[in-house]
């Protein structure tokens, strides 16, 4: 029997995707005696910039004979999207051409018919979408002891459940630095993708009944969560790129050379110029009791009424430092509370500017439904007693029936 340099199906070892090349001298794919070459990967790039899918590009040097060659690409136990596989000759792409691709039945393999004008090695790039090789993001924030600034680290976590080893693969998460690291089967590789130092942080205490509810409904005491607030812009040492969704763990320098864990939250997708809000827990030292101090129903015409409403906030800051309390009111919720029903119409209202609180309105962040106020609170006194401050929100809810 004559020996034909040909090609064969690769043995199905663990997982690896492999490329087999040879001259098409005999069509007989099932011949008993074969001569094959197994070109290794020369370069691998894992493109992680798409939000949902991972693209792998690998380069191999394939020996080609003059004429038509068959190049077999086969894989096992990996989730390569067979439809997505592309083959591009990098050496002499004008003359080294793919004639056709054949897909055998029930096999994770395909065969490119590649024409080459001359014998020699050709560098080719094979790209494909792969499942079970994905990424996530994680953040670590270490606040200074005074909680005025923090260091924010962003990590990319590459999870390789694709059953394939990639040695020294280039990786790019879509922004920032490109990495080159090996990653083995079932490994998760955590890479520091960005570090931001001296990021100003603001501790925000929020009283918002419609969003956070009561801590003690009988006493009308609101739940007051504390958030770390960072602004994703260059003035605040950030703003290089939008932050992707991921878990953020927050630590604080405890002043003794170590750090204490403050809590964790999901960092939501944050475009540039938007604020990152990390919820760290309920602030029980800031006590806010909310009551409706006035509800006057004034007839305008027929069954048409205006409602004159005053919401009263009694606030005590038991902290030994001054803080700023954010008070928010949803007008839809307030009207439901006042009327005892939902009308299905938008709320028409007017902020009555006869209280100091009206001057604390954040015009930029307030909308036609939600009013936001920033209320400064002094620290507790030297006698350890908190100063009880009262703020009143005066609104006119108009044209209701």
């Amino acid at each position, binding site marked *: 029997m004559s020996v034909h340099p040909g090609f064969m199906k690769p043995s199905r070892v663990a997982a690896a995707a492999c490329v087999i090349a040879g001259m098409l001298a005999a069509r007989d794919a099932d011949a008993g005696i074969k001569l094959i070459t197994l070109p290794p990967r020369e370069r691998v790039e894992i493109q992680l910039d798409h939000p949902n899918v991972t*693209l792998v590009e690998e380069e191999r040097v394939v020996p080609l004979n003059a004429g038509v060659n068959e190049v077999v690409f086969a894989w096992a136990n990996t989730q390569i999207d067979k439809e997505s596989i592309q083959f591009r000759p990098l050496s002499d792409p004008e003359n080294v051409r793919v004639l056709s691709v054949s897909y055998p039945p029930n096999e994770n393999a395909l065969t490119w018919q590649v024409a080459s004008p001359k014998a020699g090695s050709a560098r080719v790039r094979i790209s494909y979408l792969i499942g079970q090789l994905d990424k996530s993001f994680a953040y670590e924030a270490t606040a200074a002891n005074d909680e005025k600034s923090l260091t924010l680290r962003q990590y990319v976590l590459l999870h390789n459940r694709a059953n394939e080893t990639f040695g020294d693969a280039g990786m790019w998460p879509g922004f920032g630095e490109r990495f080159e690291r090996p990653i083995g089967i079932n490994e998760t590789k955590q890479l520091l993708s960005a570090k931001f130092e001296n990021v100003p942080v603001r501790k925000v205490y929020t009283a918002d009944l419609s969003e956070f509810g009561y801590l003690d409904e009988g006493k009308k005491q609101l739940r007051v969560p504390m958030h770390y607030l960072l602004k994703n812009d260059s003035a605040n040492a950030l703003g290089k790129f939008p932050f992707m969704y991921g878990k953020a763990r927050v630590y604080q320098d405890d002043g003794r050379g170590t750090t204490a864990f403050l809590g964790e939250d999901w960092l939501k997708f944050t475009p540039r110029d938007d604020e990152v809000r990390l919820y760290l827990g309920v602030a029980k030292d800031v006590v806010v009791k909310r009551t409706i101090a006035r509800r006057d129903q004034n007839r305008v015409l027929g069954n048409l009424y205006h409602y004159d409403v005053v919401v009263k906030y009694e606030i005590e800051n038991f902290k030994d430092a001054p803080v700023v309390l954010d008070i928010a009111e949803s007008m839809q919720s307030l009207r439901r509370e006042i009327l005892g029903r939902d009308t299905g119409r938008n709320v028409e209202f007017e902020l009555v500017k006869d209280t100091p609180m009206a001057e604390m309105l954040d015009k930029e962040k307030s*909308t*036609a439904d939600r009013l936001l106020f920033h209320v400064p609170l002094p620290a507790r006194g030297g006698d350890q007693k908190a100063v009880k401050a009262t703020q009143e929100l005066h609104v006119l809810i108009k044209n209701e029936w």
Partner: protein
Amino acid sequence: MITRTFALTLTAMIAAPVVAQRNVDLSTVPPRDTVQLTIYNSEDLTLVREIRTVTFRQGVNPLQFSWANTLIDSTSVQLRFKTRADQLELLDTTFPHDKPQQLTWNVRSGMDGDASVEITYFTSGLSWAADYVCVSDPAEGKMSFDGFVRIYNNSGEDYENAQVRLVVGTINLVEKIADLARRGVISEQDRNQMERGGGVLRAPARARAELQDAVTAGFAAAESAAPKEIVKEGLSEYFIYTIEGTETIRNTWSKRMRLFTGTDAPFDVRYRYRPEEYGAQLVRLFILRNDEASGLGGTPLPDGVVRLFKDNNRDGLSLLAQQTIKYVPVGQEIELNLGPDPEVIHEWVLLRSFRDNLWFSRSGVNVRYSPTQGHKIEVNDQVIGWDEHQVWTDRIRNYRDKPINVEFRRSFDGDIVFRSPLNPALHDYRTVQFNATIAPGEKKDLQYRVTTKSGYNQKEQHVVLEAGE
């Protein structure tokens, strides 16, 4: 090595005319000289046209045609004489009751000698699909646009050395070919065998040898070192792609070939908010045209998956989108939807809401009253009509380093006045369209007031445009 033998045999009976059942026959098997496949993609339908050379004797010649384990519609099988037609006549066609995948033709010949016959029939199980690979340049101004076709053979038959034609277009069939092929024709046993992929019929030795010769010839043809030309031409409402030379497509295999290459096709980047088309989100689109100016336009683009990549300027590609496109005629736009862009932020914010133009009804009186008309309103009068005003903004922030074009369509129910300085237009009676350009780094409010005439005030179901702040 051929793993399957052909399932079609044409038997020229040397003996006298066929009589009922016989247990001992001597037959010859004229091989296929050529075979042509015309594969439709809108239906599971392929027209097979094969030419065979048959030796006739003067008198009546029985020809037996059988197709075990394939998906041929027996009602579609036709015989024509390509040569010596003036001396050959088809007398009758018999479908034997006990051999469902077989028929017999009786041909009267006025001569002794060879003639070329054409047999045509419909089969199911062969199909094809298009797909496209596009690569944008890093600047997002031009892209390569390559089209491919992939042919799938699950027909139960190896088609060796076949001329392949692919039909684009929607053809009308009143019955499915696969149903016709299966209807009482294939036994349960055969069907099971087909599903296991194990159906192999043995052909006479000579036929097998000839077939293998044909295969060898087919692969010699396939060794041409240039990619095959695919000829594209229109036919009635359809378009036919004819693949140069011949192809061998084995049963259960598929094969992909390049249909066309497009280079440097210019495209526009646009952002659109059109909930009915793209969902309630501002999406990024690459829009190009299937025309000669784009280096395309040689053919309509059949339905298929598009994979859009971008040269990421680091000697690699990034995947931008993977989507299906519908048939694109020559000259029409091709829309590639990249989804929302994390560098272009869109917010829809209600800035203000108020009511006016109130109308009241009075119990027992069929008259409406309006304070703005100077009417006196009594204490028991009820509001029955009003104008609801909402001031909205579509707020866009552009963090890209190029200006972007955004196109909005917003639909409203009811009697609406849409007041805006945005120079809006009506897309339809209830949908407003407006466009804007956002400079790099710019945050822009596209502001408008929507007045809904409510209750008694509602007279129409439409949107009226009004200029103004």
